[in-house]
């Protein structure tokens, strides 16, 4: 039987935004797994040691692969060097941007802020607008018309997803916004989640970014070489593919408009190298439910919660065996989504909590 395709309105100022508010889905109370306060307090403890170690290693690897890329420039050997450099520059920055944006990675606040600003530039996300957009993502996770960070709206845009592997869709949009911010303007959607007190910071950061880009482009022209741009600027595009592979596992294909992170987030087990690149963001359900827990404590938090959460995925392959068919099906059937099964030991989704799954 053909399924009626109803387009949802993912804009933050449209029909579904009003609907979310009317349904009590906006700024609502979410389910939280019961964890004794004493244990949660232990898990929330901040440390500087693990993030300093990881950040020094990250910088060292960036320096090494960047140097190799420059050294072998003009030969085919520079290709693997720049593939690694690009991943470290852009995909690795995604998780640093994320954890430092929450200010949970380091115990010392200024360290979070410095790494956050750097990573924002490298992953091509303006620091202030994206801080506020991510705040909204946590308030209203995958609530249509409220969450500005729904990666795969329904029906999915397959070409857009493919272009996303090299930021070819989001990158130009981001540059347009940077230029708009340089002129002292914001989009209508941004005004719904960025407070006025932050506007000046948005505008001045955008101007600094443009200055950096202009300097690098001038350097490339003066040197008559693409190399400066291969080091600064272009890696935000050619190094984005791994962050997309990781990022799609977070919510793609899962339920919209539910107030239970167990039903709209995935936890995917990953090997230590991937967990270094992703700073344990693969424990995504845990992070959403308890965002005060730093990345290095997420595996321990997972152990505390797992009896109350759906089965985690054993790896990327298992996750994508679910995600790819789900996205494909949603192209023709936007009402379809993957229903996560809670284990028998789990507390049920509270019946009193509003849901609005129908498309």
């Amino acid at each position: 039987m053909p399924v009626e395709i109803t387009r949802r309105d993912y804009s933050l100022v449209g029909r579904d935004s009003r609907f979310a508010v009317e349904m009590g889905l906006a700024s609502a109370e979410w389910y939280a797994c019961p964890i004794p306060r004493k244990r949660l307090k232990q898990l929330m403890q901040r440390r500087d040691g693990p993030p300093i170690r990881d950040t020094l290693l990250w910088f060292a690897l960036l320096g090494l692969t960047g140097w190799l890329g420059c050294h072998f420039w003009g030969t085919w050997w520079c290709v693997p060097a720049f593939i690694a450099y690009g991943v470290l520059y852009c995909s690795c920055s995604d998780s640093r941007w994320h954890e430092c944006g929450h200010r949970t990675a380091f115990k010392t606040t200024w360290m979070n802020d410095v790494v956050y600003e750097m990573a924002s530039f490298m992953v091509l996300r303006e620091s202030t607008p994206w801080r506020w957009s991510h705040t909204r993502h946590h308030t209203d996770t995958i609530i249509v018309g409220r969450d500005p960070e729904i990666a795969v709206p329904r029906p999915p845009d397959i070409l857009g997803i493919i272009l996303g592997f090299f930021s070819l869709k989001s990158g130009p949009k981001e540059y347009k916004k940077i230029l708009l911010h340089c002129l002292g303007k914001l989009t209508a959607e941004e005004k719904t989640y960025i407070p006025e007190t932050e506007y000046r910071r948005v505008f001045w950061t955008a101007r600094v970014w443009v200055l950096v880009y202009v300097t690098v482009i001038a350097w490339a022209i003066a040197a008559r070489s693409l190399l400066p741009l291969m080091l600064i600027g272009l890696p935000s595009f050619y190094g984005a593919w791994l962050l997309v592979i990781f990022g799609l596992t977070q919510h793609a294909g899962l339920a919209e408009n539910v107030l239970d992170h167990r039903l709209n987030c995935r936890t995917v087990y990953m090997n230590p190298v991937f967990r270094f690149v992703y700073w344990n963001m693969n424990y995504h359900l845990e992070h959403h439910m308890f965002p005060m827990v730093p990345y290095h404590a997420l595996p321990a938090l997972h152990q505390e919660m797992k009896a109350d959460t759906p089965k985690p995925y054993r790896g990327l392959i298992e996750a994508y065996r679910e995600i790819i068919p789900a996205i494909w099906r949603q192209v023709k059937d936007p009402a379809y989504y993957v229903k996560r099964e809670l284990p028998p030991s789990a507390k049920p989704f509270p019946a009193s909590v509003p849901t609005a799954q129908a498309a």
Partner: protein
Amino acid sequence: MNDGWIKTCNVDDVEPEDVLRFDHGEQTFAIYRTTDDKFYATDGLCTHQKVHLAGGFVMDHLIECPKHNGRFDFTTGQAKGAPVCVDLKTYPTRVENGEVFIRIG
């Protein structure tokens, strides 16, 4: 109640470097205990999204909101940066016979 002072909890109800929720009528408060056993009180809800701060994390003199990691200095109520922009109201406290009082009048 005496001159606006009300009992909130016993000293031992709050662990050092932790926070406790206290509801009084329509109002809700957060009671903090520092590592040197000083007590402080603020409004119980984050000024950003009305989330109970008692579910948050206490570090030195800071309370971090459990939802968006916004931080306040609970000794002064000062908001310490995005995503919190509005300060938190604070209340005087006093400890008598192992009980913590706050003045809300």
